[in-house]
């Protein structure tokens, strides 16, 4: 085994990973507990809460499998515990690989190849870690003020249509990037996107026709899987 991989798979890395995992779980449970308490004050029904939790969980499974595949790719290069930690914390394979490569590049070696020393590994780990500080810094220093300004603006426009238009426009802007990239690139990405869109419309029509409201919870997942299948068939 390459020297650096012994460190990458060492008990100390597993311990740090479990601590990080615990922090994530504690944060989530604290926020969930706060939200449940607030939901009671707002008389939000139990069935609404159940529906939200079920749908959010179901629609997360398929994209999470992509993260597991990313794990399979990253583990041979960066070891299991660190790859697991990175993909759980601000994780995306493209970012992690790009950052790891930058670290190796700066040392004048190729990532994971012979010549990739412990120092090169340290620099890759440093680069991957420090890159994720950007979003954390923005959120720490700017989010509260930004959110308060947005809330004031929304309060001012309470009686007009603008708030709804604004949020719709922001969502459309975000979606447009991920819709247009397959349109421009074509091929299996376009097939996946169009198939998924068609199935989403079919399921919506089917729900209206039959009244099977429970199907709404699975609509996104079913459409996605159909889109992904279409990409394989092309």
């Amino acid at each position, binding site marked *: 085994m390459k020297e650096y991989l012994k460190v990458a798979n060492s008990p100390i890395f597993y311990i740090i990973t479990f601590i990080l995992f615990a922090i994530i779980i504690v944060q989530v449970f604290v926020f*969930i507990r*706060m939200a449940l308490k607030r939901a009671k004050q707002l008389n939000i029904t139990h069935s609404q809460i159940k529906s939200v939790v079920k749908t959010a969980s179901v629609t997360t499974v398929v994209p999470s499998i*992509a993260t597991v595949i990313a794990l*399979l790719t990253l583990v041979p290069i960066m070891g299991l515990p660190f790859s*697991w930690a990175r993909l759980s914390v601000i994780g995306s394979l493209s970012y992690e690989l790009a950052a790891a490569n930058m670290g190796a590049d700066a040392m004048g070696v190729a990532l994971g190849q012979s010549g990739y020393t412990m120092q090169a590994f340290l620099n890759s780990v440093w680069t991957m*870690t*420090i890159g994720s*500080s950007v979003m954390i810094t*923005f959120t720490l220093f700017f989010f509260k003020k930004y959110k308060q300004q947005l809330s004031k603006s929304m309060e001012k426009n309470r009686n007009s249509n603008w708030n709804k238009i604004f949020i719709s426009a922001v969502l459309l802007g975000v979606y447009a990037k991920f819709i247009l990239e397959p349109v421009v690139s074509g091929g299996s990405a376009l097939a996946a996107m169009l198939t998924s869109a068609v199935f989403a419309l079919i399921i919506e029509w089917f729900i209206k026709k039959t009244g099977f409201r429970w199907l*709404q919870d699975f609509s996104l997942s079913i459409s996605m899987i159909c889109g992904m299948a279409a990409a394989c068939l092309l």
Partner: protein
Amino acid sequence: MNDISTAYDNQAHRIGRISLVIAFVCTLFFPAAIAVYYKVPLPFHAMGASFTAIMLMMIPASIGDFFSIAPIVSPSGMYMMALTGNFTNMKIPSTIAALESAGLDPTEYTEESNVLSTLAVGASTITCELVIFAGVLLLTPLSKPLGNPALAPAFNNIVPALFGALGVTLIKKSPKLAIAPIILGFLIIKFQLIPSSFILLALVLLSVVGGRVIYKIDEKKAEK
């Protein structure tokens, strides 16, 4: 916004900030463990170079993500997403679908949607972490089926499949609003008019400006 709501949001900001700092310090233990425990000398010259390179990549992309996502998520949701990532390809879509399943309009930001979107992001985060944990435990048996080349196109196209379904629903609801980001976005992406790190921010800004124009036109029509 009433006092209870403000207090709830302020508590979310407090807990969020503390948890982000603790988690980020914890991530620094990885390079620190290599340098201190394994006594590997710090390559200062390379650390500076890679710091610059990663910042040049991450700052524009993070600005785009931050300004786009912050208006549409709850304070608690944002802190959970800032820690665990996968905003646009997992947490936001699952939150939108979840709010719709509860009979809420995701484009209307109310106290109820604030609370329910927090629960959605929380559920999504736990599910993702559990799936990854299962993947870790089953790494060896999973590597063959998931690594099958026949399935590669499927897993390479999760994001287009996701946004195909989401996009068609939203565009159907607001076709006029979709014109500006779709047409201008196509031109920007097709002809690579701006660096890729700025595309998300540009599309959101174009979309909001387009939305404002439509709003003003509709307002004038209503006055007549």
